[in-house]
């Protein structure tokens, strides 16, 4: 187990071109020992490149990687003490489950007794004990994925377990169980887990720290709550949460209020230093409430449709040309075509050039 420092790391796949396009723009970050991290972003945003740089499958074009302050940038994968789980289960087809789990230790010349002890312990954690003598190829996809994971966990000294969308091939109900066991494993073994995914639910339920990436850039690192309530960019607001954050093009009208569609909305953001008056108002549909009377921050909305999702209702309405979505409890009756919606000032995020004004 180790602390992992990524110092000024960048990567391009065509380094010999004059103005190379970066798959990963320069960034620095520290991954603490024993924490759970999720790298979240749309396809092609550089998640896998980042993971492969850490595991040593890709050498970064710039910057350094340190494991416990030791520079490992030039070390090959084998010498880095990393475990990686791929999107599709990788097992040794010709071996039994036991031999699969024992393989990394056999390659490192551990004693027979030690190997047996470790394999027993890991197979119990992963619920694979009853399959140990079966040929690995006979297991189901999720069990095979557990074997891939188990091969990472049998090594006690492993610096981090990296997972590249490991639950893609797994059924939804099993996904939930596997995520839970991953968390338990993390608590039991104190292994640093890094999890790459494009599924926000997976990231939110799995990790303490979520790293959101877009177009080779790390746009926000934080707790699920921060990402949800205070997205640092409009991209994060749009990408995280379902439905996406409501975003309205507006104009600054005073030091703490903005105007959109001729409506004055108060915010808690200090707007006095804003030079460009064109801003965006962002608010989560979860924070918008139905109001009974006209007061500050209440807007009149023409209801387009109401969708019942079982545990909540999603109202889609129009304010002039703008579309607004609000999540409300399903018990609340929605009687008329016109609704009053309240936008709480403390939940309004203001974005200038798509970046959050703090």
């Amino acid at each position, binding site marked *: 187990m180790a602390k992992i420092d990524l110092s000024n790391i960048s990567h391009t796949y065509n380094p010999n071109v004059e103005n190379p396009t970066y798959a990963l723009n320069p960034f620095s970050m520290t991954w603490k020992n024993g924490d759970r991290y999720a790298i979240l972003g749309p396809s092609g945003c550089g998640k896998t490149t980042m993971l492969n740089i850490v*595991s040593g*499958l890709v050498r970064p074009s710039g910057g350094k990687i340190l494991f416990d302050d030791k520079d490992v940038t030039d070390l*090959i*994968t*084998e010498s880095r003490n*990393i*475990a*990686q789980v*791929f*999107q*599709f289960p*990788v097992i*040794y*087809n*010709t*071996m039994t489950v036991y031999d699969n789990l024992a*393989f*990394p230790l056999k*390659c*490192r010349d551990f004693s027979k007794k030690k190997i047996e002890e470790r394999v027993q312990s890991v197979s119990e954690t992963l619920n694979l004990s009853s399959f140990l003598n079966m*040929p690995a*190829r006979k297991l189901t996809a999720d069990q095979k994925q557990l074997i*891939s994971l188990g*091969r*990472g966990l049998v090594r006690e000294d492993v610096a981090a377990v990296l997972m590249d969308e490991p639950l893609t091939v797994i059924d939804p109900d099993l996904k939930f169980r596997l995520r839970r066991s991953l968390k338990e494993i993390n608590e039991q073994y104190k292994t640093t887990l890094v999890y790459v995914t494009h599924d926000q639910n997976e990231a939110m339920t799995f990790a303490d720290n979520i790293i959101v990436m877009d177009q080779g850039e790390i746009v926000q690192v934080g707790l699920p709550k921060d990402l949800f309530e205070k997205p640092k960019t409009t991209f994060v607001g749009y990408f995280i949460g379902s439905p996406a954050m409501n975003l309205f093009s507006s104009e600054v009208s005073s030091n703490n209020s903005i105007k959109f569609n001729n409506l004055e909305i108060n915010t808690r953001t200090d707007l006095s230093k804003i030079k460009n008056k064109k801003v965006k108002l962002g608010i989560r549909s979860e924070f918008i409430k139905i109001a009974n009377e006209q007061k500050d921050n209440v807007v009149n909305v023409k209801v387009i449709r109401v969708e019942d999702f079982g545990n909540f209702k999603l109202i889609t309405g129009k304010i002039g040309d703008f579309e607004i979505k609000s999540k409300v409890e399903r018990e609340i009756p929605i009687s008329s075509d016109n609704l009053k919606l309240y936008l709480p000032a403390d939940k309004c995020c203001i974005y200038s050039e798509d970046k959050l004004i703090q």
Partner: protein
Amino acid sequence: MNFKHKFVFLFPGLFVLIGILIFPIIFTIRLSFSGWNSYTPEMNFIGITNYIRLFTDDPRFWESFFRLSFLSVTTVILQYIIGFSLALMVWRDIKFKRFFRVMFLIPMMTTPVIMTVIWRTFFHESLGPVNDLLGTFGIGPKWLSDPATAKITVIIVEVWQWTPFMFLLLLAGLLSLPKEPFLAAAIDGASAFRKFVFVTFPLMAPISIGAIIIRLIEASKIMDTVFVLTSGGPGTATETSSFYIYIKGLREFQMGYAATLSFTYLVIMIISLTIIAKVLTKLMIKE
């Protein structure tokens, strides 16, 4: 689909199939029941006389058949080992990769008969360059006139000619393998040997079986090399089934008997190759 005239469109293909496959087989079977030879060149009917002769009074055919089995199995195993090694070599990022890939394919692009003539010249026991060279060490093997060595010569030429084909198939197989198992093995700390045994070889098993079967079918027809190199000699030391059938049919004009040999040979080959394919699949792919 219910279309009245579909047979009209099927006919060209069917016609070709009947013309080149079904008719010759049926004709051969009929011929095998006749005594057609140079004295009585006609399609008479002599019952199973030819078959009785083959199974009771023709050890030469069976000898040639076992010789063929030995030659084809040996050459194909050698081709597989050498072809796989070469493919593994140029699969990785080495210098002049393209150059080597083309070089290894050259033998396949040459005409077998012409190359065999060149090999025969190489191995000529008194005039060939091989013995000229070996002579400096005081040895001069009888490449073509000693029964044991002549077999080795045939094997050398066959392996040289057809390893590229094996190489090509196996290289294509290697290039199509997924990357992840190799990365996983690297992360697990597997040595090159372990990677080969537990990752490369199992992944290559299906394509290996395909390549081996294709080559076995081809190798069992071995004829031109033997014809040019040794003419089946010395004696019958390198005579294979197809060469023996050729002698019976086209040199001695025992057409009826040659048809019996051909048909029997065909049946044996179909059965044995099916068994071989099944056994190989069982051995190499564990399902």
